[in-house]
């Protein structure tokens, strides 16, 4: 229970650091970010929203209030999920823009990371079991090489070869034009079809890491006595590999899951950009280019929050799976 409390405390603190970093960044930067945003608003927009100047000053600094007052106001607005108004999607609030784009990103990253984990650990397990075998000498270097490819480069190559030249996949956007997002078969089928290539690209970038981690841990596990014992008992090779060695080797790589997820969130931005996929990653890139600071701040918070939640979920899973953690 003490362990549990400590972890919770850590995550609360991590969220606070993310919030505060978000608050401090624009104030630490040279120049006047708030001035930049306000200059982009037209006079009629300012007239229609009487409080907008104060809101941006509180968000980005440069007003006549003290930093502490700004900070309190900032935290207060966050408790109401008020992230301000997106200047590039005027007059939509930031929370609405995020709510519209985030589901696409969650689907993309969720499917890709899960598949990469299952396939990667499987290959890593077999590679370690039959060291120097076909899987070890062909798949491991190939996936390692693919992992060295930057996600955007793999994405560009895939768009060119599989999309443009071979015509196997659609290459732009999240669904065919003319469809209205909703729970009908035509939309879901189109969305799935458009997600295939982006998911494959993210998988290509992240499977290699799992393979390498699993292989390293598995090599150490294989030399344990209980594995030799299981083999001496005459159990089937496959059973020893999965139930005895693999089952014990999977915990350390699983601990890296949250870090892989954080990496995949980063890779997502590039993949969405290349595919013009209307998710949160593409929105972040466009907001950063268009100086839409309220939106970049809001998205950074959402991404940080997602990674923190992933970390927390992994900790809980670890707690369930590993008796050593429970005992300590």
């Amino acid at each position, binding site marked *: 229970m003490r362990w549990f409390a400590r972890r919770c405390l*850590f995550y609360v603190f991590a969220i606070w650091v993310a919030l505060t970093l978000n608050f401090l960044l624009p104030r630490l930067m040279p120049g006047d970010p708030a001035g930049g945003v306000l200059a982009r608003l037209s006079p009629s927009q300012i007239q229609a929203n009487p409080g907008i100047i104060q809101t941006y000053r509180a968000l980005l600094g440069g007003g006549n209030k003290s930093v502490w007052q700004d900070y309190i106001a900032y935290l207060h607005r966050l408790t109401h999920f008020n992230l301000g108004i997106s200047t590039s999607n005027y007059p939509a609030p930031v929370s609405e823009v995020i709510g519209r784009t985030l589901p696409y990103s969650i689907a993309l990253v969720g499917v890709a990371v899960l598949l990469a984990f299952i396939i990667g650990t499987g290959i890593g397990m077999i590679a370690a079991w039959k060291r120097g075998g076909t899987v070890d000498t062909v798949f491991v270097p190939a996936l390692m090489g693919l992992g060295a490819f930057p996600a955007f480069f793999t994405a*560009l190559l895939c768009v060119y070869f599989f999309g443009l030249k071979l015509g196997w996949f659609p290459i732009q956007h999240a669904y065919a034009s003319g469809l209205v997002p909703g729970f009908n078969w035509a939309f879901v089928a189109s969305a799935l079809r458009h997600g295939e290539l982006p998911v494959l690209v993210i998988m290509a970038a992240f499977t290699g890491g799992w393979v390498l981690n699993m292989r*390293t841990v598995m090599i150490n596990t294989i030399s344990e006595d209980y594995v030799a014992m299981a083999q001496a008992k005459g159990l089937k090779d496959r059973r020893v590999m999965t139930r005895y060695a693999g089952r014990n080797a999977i915990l350390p790589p699983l601990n890296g899951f*949250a870090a892989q997820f954080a990496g995949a969130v980063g890779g997502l*931005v590039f993949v969405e950009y290349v595919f013009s996929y209307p998710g949160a990653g593409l929105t972040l890139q466009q907001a950063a280019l268009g100086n839409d600071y309220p939106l970049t701040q809001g*998205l950074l918070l959402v991404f*940080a929050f997602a990674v923190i939640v992933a970390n927390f979920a992994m900790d809980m899973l670890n707690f369930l799976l590993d008796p050593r953690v429970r005992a300590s």
Partner: protein
Amino acid sequence: MSQLQPLLEPEVTPLSVPAPRKHHRIPGWLSLLFENPKSRFGLVLIGFMILVAVIAPWISVNNPTDFNILATRQAPSWNHLFGTTDQGSDIFSQVVLGTRRSLILGASAALLATTLAATLGILAAYSGGIIDEIVNFLTNVFLVIPTIPLLIVISGYLNARGMTTMILVLGLTLWAFEARILRGQALSLKSRDFVHASKVAGESTRRIVFGEIMPNMISRIAAAFVLVFYIALLVDAGLEFLGLGDTTHVSWGMVLYWAQTNSTVLQGEWWPFLFPGLALVTTVVGLVFLLAGIDELSNPRLRTMKTKKRKKASR
């Protein structure tokens, strides 16, 4: 037979001792790296990229960003080895000149991050107590904030995105996971006899950290340096690709950015993105193989070659 194996092992290891003595000029660590096939491959690739960076001004045209309306969107030919952009600039010159920036930026950012990480990580592990708690806490917090979105937001705020700024930003954001690796390594060294001995001998903390523990972790530190080197390269090119770079300079990321902005891929032009991408991949693959080689040298269990040979010897 199996009991004799450990004694036989030194004879079959590829790392025989007399070999480095033959060529006097090459330092020991370099010849070690050359004897491992993985790191040798990596060193050859990196050596090639360094060579390109050094001779870049002699093999490129004078003004790589010059536009030429008569030669736009040309596929690779003898006149333009890597083809031209939609402004008619020579992509070969841009890629070759971009090599310098990438290598210098990656190495500098890695140096900054490694210095920070090694100092903080080892100091924390050795001192223990409250210092260790604080450093460990800080690194863990840094690790849960996703780096790429953070860097995108920071670059969005920056007005000047010159090389020095990017080195500082990358170095200061990438040190955390390196510090975690190095701290873990230092923790296992901390309770070794030689550390206790120097403590008893009355050596100062600074001397124990920098003079005793650090030299014993040099292969780990080198591995961490190489890791951050290629991550910094990738991240910098990625940010530029997203349009968050300095549009006035020449680099791989900028060539890729213009290729994407002008949607050259969708028009079937493969050369504006293929060549800068390949340059990036070549460098990164070189560094990844070098890293794998260093890992194998410091952790003999990972070597595949050796086990194969041992099996043959035992038959």
